[in-house]
């Protein structure tokens, strides 16, 4: 279980994350929404070690990870994918996967053997098949389509076999149809891999359709948490963010 306790981070005078406490039970699927500048990405950056929190705790199965380095946090089981696909542009899909498994198995500093190591193959193969990248294994990452690059980014996080997977806008920059395909994939991964998934998403239709639980951030604070129905009818959320359109649809 991932527990966030009183997490806070300021940039100058701006409180980007302001006393946030949340629980993400094992195997849960949660969407994080909020207007631009609500502190969604900062929240992810604090959990994954890209930023050091000013105060608060990030407890994964009771171990406090707040303020530790990204490699340490990854090794404890929190993986992430990025808003803009963060990949290795000159490596092929297969090399990328094999390299990531090597890192996870702590063989990334091995000098006397040839890449790839035998024991890295099965996992790399599984995840490539899971995300439908196996047919593009020999393509250089830079030549993949935008959607495939996002999938590769997620595959990079997934191949480390994380307990918690944080996805920063998996559908960013995609057309409507591609969005649904991607989000179906995310939901499928969540169901098949039995991991905790937290994702940031802007498209309300998507969020309300697939997320059993929603967290709304606004100016670094939690505005509301709850099921899609609870969020739709929450007056604070409607005022700050949704407008009346979705509220009307729910009514």
């Amino acid at each position, binding site marked *: 279980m991932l527990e966030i306790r009183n997490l806070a981070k300021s940039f100058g005078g701006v409180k980007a994350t302001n006393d946030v406490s949340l629980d993400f039970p094992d195997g849960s699927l949660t969407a994080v929404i909020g207007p631009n500048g609500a502190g969604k990405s900062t929240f992810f950056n604090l959990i994954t070690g890209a930023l050091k929190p000013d105060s608060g705790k990030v407890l994964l199965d009771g171990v406090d990870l707040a303020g530790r380095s990204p490699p340490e946090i990854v090794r404890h089981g929190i993986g992430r994918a990025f808003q803009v696909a963060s990949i290795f542009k000159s490596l092929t899909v297969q090399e990328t996967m094999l390299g990531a498994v090597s890192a996870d198995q702590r063989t990334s*500093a091995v000098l006397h053997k040839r*890449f790839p190591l035998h024991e890295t193959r099965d996992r790399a193969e599984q995840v490539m098949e899971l995300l439908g990248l196996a047919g593009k294994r020999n393509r250089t990452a830079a030549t993949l389509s935008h959607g495939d690059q996002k999938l590769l980014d997620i595959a990079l996080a997934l191949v480390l076999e994380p307990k918690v997977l944080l996805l920063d806008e998996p559908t960013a920059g995609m057309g409507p149809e591609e969005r649904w395909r991607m989000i179906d994939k995310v939901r499928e991964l969540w169901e098949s891999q039995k991991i905790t998934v937290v994702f940031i998403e802007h498209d309300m239709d998507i969020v309300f359709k697939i997320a059993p639980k929603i967290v709304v951030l606004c100016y670094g604070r939690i505005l509301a948490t709850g099921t899609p129905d609870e969020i739709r009818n929450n007056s604070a959320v409607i005022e700050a963010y949704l407008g009346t359109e979705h509220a009307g649809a729910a009514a």
Partner: protein
Amino acid sequence: MTELEAGRARTLAPVQSGAALHRYRDVLIALIAFAVLASLPLFTSSKALLDFVIRCSAYGLFATSLNLLVGYTGLTSFGHGMFFGLGAYSFGLIMQKLGVPIPVAFIATLAITALVAAVIGAICVRLKEIYFAFVTLAFQMLIHSTILSWASFTGGDQGLRGGIPRPAFLGINLANHIHLYVASCALLILGLLAMRQIAQSPFGYTLRMIRDNAARASFLGIDVWRAKLTVFVLAALFASMGGMVMALFVSGAYPEFAYWTISGEAIFINMLGGVSTFLGPMVGTVLLLLLNDTVTRFTEYHGIVLGIVILFFALGLRKGLLDFVAEWYAHRRETGEGR
């Protein structure tokens, strides 16, 4: 075995044996290259040609080691020549002052280089691009001025004079020109083979990941700082080896070996040959030395000619010679498959 597993085993098997095959292929190529180089004295008595190969060995080791930093890790060092100079001076001084057998001096020099590189690397590899380049350059100047000002120990601007003693060991007499030639070739081939292994190891791929996207690498659990420091030290060792070959060749060591222009030449070589292939710097070495030797014979303004050549590669081709060939070959194969 389920059907799925069996299918997976089928797709994986060729990849597996491929990795092992590549290793044998590299060793085979190295053996052939060594055999060809080592038998050269049987066909020619030209001392100039053998000298040329010895210089190629020294510079080739040095330039290829820089490519481990520049091409594989994305660390552009402007001070890599300090380890070339350090190798030459340490080796020369140990031989002159202590009179130990050559292999002992060789190992001791590598140990000294590793130590110095670890200290300098620990300071430098945290820095980003241009700062890394500048600070490595600053350390190079520091070592150069130490050599100049500590004249009682290093001979100052005169260099290590009086020759480096080259006592025979294990039947190898490096004072003999042919022996020195074969030993240089052996060091070159062994060094290249070791660097090739580094480049194709899991660590080599970790370096490529860091070059492409260091932040992402750290989110995979890779300790970026440690990996950069490791390759910085490893590259320094091979540069130092190049320096030792040079010291043996000229039987001395001179401040120019540690001056920043030597780093510049290595960067020049990498630009000429290209950094996207393993052998690019080796091709660049041969090109530069050939250019140097021929151009200086015809004009005293050889700097201008070299400058024009580098401009041609940097602005005209926008890549090194071997990059160009590799791309052309890949393109041809692709269009060939398309048909």
